[in-house]
């Protein structure tokens, strides 16, 4: 059943264009204008067969418009959309072999669950007997086999969600498009459905294209993520790449929490860059495979779990730099202590301290020297203003994503 396991996901991630048989969906410089407003600007990427691909970004970033263009509800102003190599840019939605799970589910209220799920098959004139078996099979896949005779208004939000999924998947589309399908569910149910979606995707082996503003959701489920902002795709990569090696400061701040500090590139030898911290000292940072122009402005990013007090055990090599700070707050959060410190220039940094970092020895108001392992910092080739220095979001949970959106 599972086609996704036939291929090595690693190879598709490095170079999606090299996948045998070509990508399922290809966007070629796709641009969409609504009047003067540029909703999507030159989106250009491939989505491989069997991939769980997410488009992530704050609301208004163009992710839903991109999805609607793939579905056929909107036509690109410029560029082409290819579905298995065929240009579908001007093909109406009912002639495209993709199906959508809508944000509000859009189940037909006057039909029972069976008729809802059978709708697409009947449109394609599938024989009644086959419709029955396939609908029941799909209701098994979404684990609601006994609900065939119910009306949508007799189902809970999570059940409606599963039926919407079954209604789309039963047609075995080339790609399944999901438009923030978990947005209306409460946190607990959302986490259950995240794992369920992942399981179903593995079972049916269909390409999922998932739109969300919730970075945690995207990290949990995706093989690859496209991070979008203001109509542009900032970065496409695996969750690990995007979290560890953000291409822009926006990506760094939108995915998880990031401490950002403006720096100037002093020199580069091989994959090691020396930067001036503007705090009176210099750091050594991995170049991340790039060549950084000497004298250019850049930003270093350190995740809160990589920032530790000097003297605490370091993971991943020797200390690569130090910052003198003052402790401004200590909050016990269970697994970690959230320690907020302030640099001499007034930037707030956040460190998540585990028990091995001995947070009990710290006191608010006392001076502290923070440090990190060499590969705990990442050099983002983008300048930030001094007033943007410091931690990007004050909280880790979804309230941060909502605030950005």
């Amino acid at each position, binding site marked *: 059943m599972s086609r996704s396991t036939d291929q090595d996901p690693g190879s598709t991630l490095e170079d999606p264009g090299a996948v045998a048989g070509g990508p399922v969906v290809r966007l070629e410089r796709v641009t969409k204008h609504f009047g003067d407003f540029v909703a999507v600007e030159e989106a250009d990427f491939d989505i491989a067969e069997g991939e769980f691909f997410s488009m992530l970004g704050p609301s208004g970033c163009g992710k839903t418009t991109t999805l609607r263009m793939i579905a*056929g509800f909107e036509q690109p102003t410029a560029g082409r959309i290819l579905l298995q190599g065929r240009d579908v840019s001007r093909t109406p939605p009912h002639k495209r072999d993709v199906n959508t799970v809508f944000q509000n589910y*859009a189940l037909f209220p006057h039909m029972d669950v069976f008729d809802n799920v059978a*709708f697409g098959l009947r*449109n394609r004139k599938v024989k009644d007997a086959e419709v029955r078996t396939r609908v029941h099979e799909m209701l098994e896949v979404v684990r609601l086999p006994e609900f065939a005779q119910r009306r949508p208004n007799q189902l809970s939000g999570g059940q409606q969600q599963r039926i919407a999924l079954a209604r*789309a998947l039963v047609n075995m589309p080339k790609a399944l498009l999901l438009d923030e399908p978990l947005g209306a569910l409460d946190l607990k149910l959302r986490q259950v459905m995240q794992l369920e979606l992942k399981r179903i995707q593995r079972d049916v082996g269909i390409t999922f294209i998932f739109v969300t503003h919730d970075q945690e959701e995207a990290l949990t489920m995706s093989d690859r993520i496209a991070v979008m902002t203001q109509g542009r795709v900032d970065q496409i990569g695996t969750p690990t790449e995007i979290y560890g090696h953000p291409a822009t400061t926006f990506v760094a701040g939108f995915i998880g929490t990031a401490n950002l500090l403006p720096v100037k590139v002093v020199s580069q030898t091989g994959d090691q860059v020396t930067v001036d911290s503007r705090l009176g000292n210099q750091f050594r940072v991995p170049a991340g495979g790039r060549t950084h122009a000497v004298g250019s402005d850049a930003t270093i990013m350190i995740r809160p779990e990589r920032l530790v007090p000097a003297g605490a055990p370091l993971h991943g090599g020797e200390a690569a730099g130090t910052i003198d700070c003052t402790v401004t707050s200590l909050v016990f959060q269970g697994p970690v202590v959230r320690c907020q410190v302030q640099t001499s220039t007034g930037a707030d940094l956040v460190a998540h301290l585990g028990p091995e970092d001995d947070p009990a020895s710290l006191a608010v108001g006392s001076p502290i020297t923070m440090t990190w392992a060499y590969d705990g910092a990442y050099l983002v080739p983008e300048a930030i203003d001094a007033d943007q220095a410091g931690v990007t979001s004050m909280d880790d949970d979804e309230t941060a994503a909502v605030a950005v959106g």
Partner: protein
Amino acid sequence: MGMLSPGVIWLLLFFLVPVLILVKASLSSTPRRFIPPTFSWDWSNYTAAFSQYQPQFVRSFGYAGTATILAILIGYPLAYWIATQGGRFKNLLIGLVVVPFFISYLIRTIAWTSILSDNGPFVGLYRLLPWVGSDGRLLATPWAVIGGLTYNFISFMILPIYVSLEKIDFRLTEAAADLGSTAWHAFRKVVLPLSMPGVFAGSLLVFIPAAGDYINTYYLGSAKTTMIGTVVQDQFLKQQDYPQAAALSMVLMVIITTMVLIYSKFLGTEGLAV
């Protein structure tokens, strides 16, 4: 129970009592000169209703039914167009549908007599049609009556259909298109069924008053187009045969109620609650 009583009193006073008075009158003897009708379990009024006035009953339901169908055929596309394409002019357009009500029903109907009259603007064009002779008329024909009924009651069709269309989430048609439906198929399978409560309500609101109407046939029809309303009005106000008029009214009421029940079985009134 206490909360129910105002409603119960209202029903007793304005529904049950008048119906009982009507039943009593319908079972009274036919009045003669100087002899008022008296209650006597006299069923002759009912037998007369069926034997003497059958053509009028048939015509009433035929005209009202045709007018209802015409009102659906004209009103549904109009309501659909306003609901889907009206944009910010929706309320204005719906207002325009209601505007004719500011003029008396009688005046509007009389206005049609001059529009359809033999020297009016349309008869000339109508007579050019190949199957119409030079003596073709519009006024005083069944179609003039049906046209008048349709015109006078069509707002009652447009408004409920508009309300039910307005409630439909048109993302459902996107979902249908996504699942392979053409625009027409999506309309037939999704929009039309979901707007049936409006069609049902509109049909009742047009059919019931149209079946009992006598104004349209009086002004736009002829002696050959009399409807049951004409007879009831004549019996009540001219012949002053209250028992006969009451019996005719009762028969009309029972037939309409039966038809509505059958109709609701087919379309389902439960849908009205959606």
